[in-house]
């Protein structure tokens, strides 16, 4: 429009504090829209989504099932093309997978033919690091996620929660500038989820790891995040940005505090409408109403 700047800043979002000085964006998602063309209909999975992840920040994106979270995850990770808008890391527009971003997937993703240690050493091996050095580094990350003593085990000999820890350790060993996780705890039971969440929280607080977590779990988002982005259901837009001002460093007893409960309630009010819309739509589909 009238701006002479080719790289003009994104229009501010509601609740966006980018005008406040004192932080830099590690990751910028700018007006990203993704449509899927299936048979007869076009699904807008992500609709004009813009946000920044600040250096050292823990940001969560929360939204009901099917709202486009994994789609956004794959776009940011460089695994999915054919979208409009832009994703920038360190000021540069990304084209495809990027060394600065480390991904943890929603699905089981350990390599079944590799031991725990060799799984974690995978990205180091891929970047050409020598055997002794990479196994050494991998051992460090294995113990960081609490799997010391399981180095020689294979994924088939571990529980689901342990496998997910292997996947997280593997991505941490990659030493990315930005840790990008898609519902890494979704398949776990509630207790394991909180404990593993706390593990990630402690690691993140110790290393100031910039983290973008995608989740549909409200408690998890509050427990871990500095800010939470709430996404709408179909099309996936950003509805609200919620600051979680629980004090840091946080420990695992944060989840029993009153402030935690207040934040959970606040987020639920934001999400309720979206979740019910998602549910109603899928019910309509089931009853054969949709054509």
């Amino acid at each position, binding site marked *: 429009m009238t701006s002479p700047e080719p790289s003009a800043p994104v229009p501010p979002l509601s609740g966006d504090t980018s005008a406040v000085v004192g932080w830099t964006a590690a990751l910028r998602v700018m007006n990203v829209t993704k449509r899927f063309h299936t048979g007869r209909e076009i699904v807008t999975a992500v609709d004009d989504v813009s946000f920044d992840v600040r250096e050292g920040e823990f940001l969560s994106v929360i939204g009901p099932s099917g709202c486009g979270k994994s789609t956004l995850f794959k776009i940011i990770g460089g695994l999915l093309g054919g979208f409009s808008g832009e994703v920038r890391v360190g000021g540069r527009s990304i084209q495809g997978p*990027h060394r600065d*971003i480390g991904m943890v997937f929603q*699905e089981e*993703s350990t390599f079944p033919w590799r031991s725990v240690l060799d799984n974690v050493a995978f*990205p180091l091996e*891929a970047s050409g690091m020598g055997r002794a050095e990479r196994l050494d580094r991998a051992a460090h990350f294995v113990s960081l996620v609490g799997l010391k003593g399981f180095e020689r085990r*294979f994924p*088939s000999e571990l529980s689901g929660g342990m496998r997910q820890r292997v996947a997280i350790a593997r991505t941490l060993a*990659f030493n990315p500038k930005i840790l990008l996780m898609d519902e890494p705890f979704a398949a776990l039971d509630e207790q394991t989820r909180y404990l593993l969440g706390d593990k990630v929280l402690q690691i993140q607080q110790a290393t100031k790891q910039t983290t973008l977590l995608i989740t549909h779990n409200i408690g998890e988002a509050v427990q871990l995040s500095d800010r939470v982005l709430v996404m709408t259901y179909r099309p996936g837009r950003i509805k609200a940005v919620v600051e979680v001002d629980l004090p840091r460093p946080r420990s695992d007893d944060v989840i029993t505090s009153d402030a935690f409960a207040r934040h959970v309630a606040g987020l639920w009010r934001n999400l309720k409408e979206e979740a019910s819309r998602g549910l109603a739509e899928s019910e309509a589909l089931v009853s054969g109403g949709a054509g």
Partner: protein
Amino acid sequence: MAQGASLAAVVAVWAAVVNARLFPGDIVPSPAAVAGRIVGLALSADFYGHLRVTAAEIAGGLALAAVAGILLGVAIGARPLLRRAYEPWLHYLAPTPKIVFFPVMLMLFGVGAASKVSLATLGAFFPIVLGTISGVREMDPVLVQVGRGFALSPYRMLTMVYVPAIRAALVNAVRLGFGVAVVVVLLAETKLSSAGIGYLIIDAYRHFDMPLLAALVLVLFGLAILANAGLARLARHGAPAVSR
């Protein structure tokens, strides 16, 4: 044990047939005569020279087919569009007898080893490429995404993700390819060549040396059994249970 007994039974029947003179003695030689020729073969340097030629032709063809089959198989298998375009053709072409291409290979590569190697490559390529494609199709797609997410080079994607992920399918495909390569090389050697086990067989036939012919065939059986057992062992080795 049972295998040893069955072998002994076959030899006994064979000896009985010869003793009963059901066939002229010079067409079906006695087990003793054949055993003598096998020992003779085992002691002749000449035989090992021919064996090396045949083994090298098979190994060369199999190696080329494995490289081409795995590279193309992964390239095609990983892309649904290419898979739909090429997989049916490969399936149609796979069972056609590759020996019909022998005259072409002779013209292109001459009567030496190169024409046999190229024929073996062609024959072994189909089972290997098809096995690779189906292996890639069955594999867990998230493993590919993990590799891509770590920004792996195409070479590392192949060696660190695809090949280990489809290892079982690959070993089976290479075994099938080996079988085809053996058949094609021996057939080609009997048709037109100056070296190799197939050449020795057809040469024995030309000189009507039936004990030698039988000895060569038996040695060949023995070697094929050994090679297959070796490949089967390869299949069982390595990674533990891949299921979760």
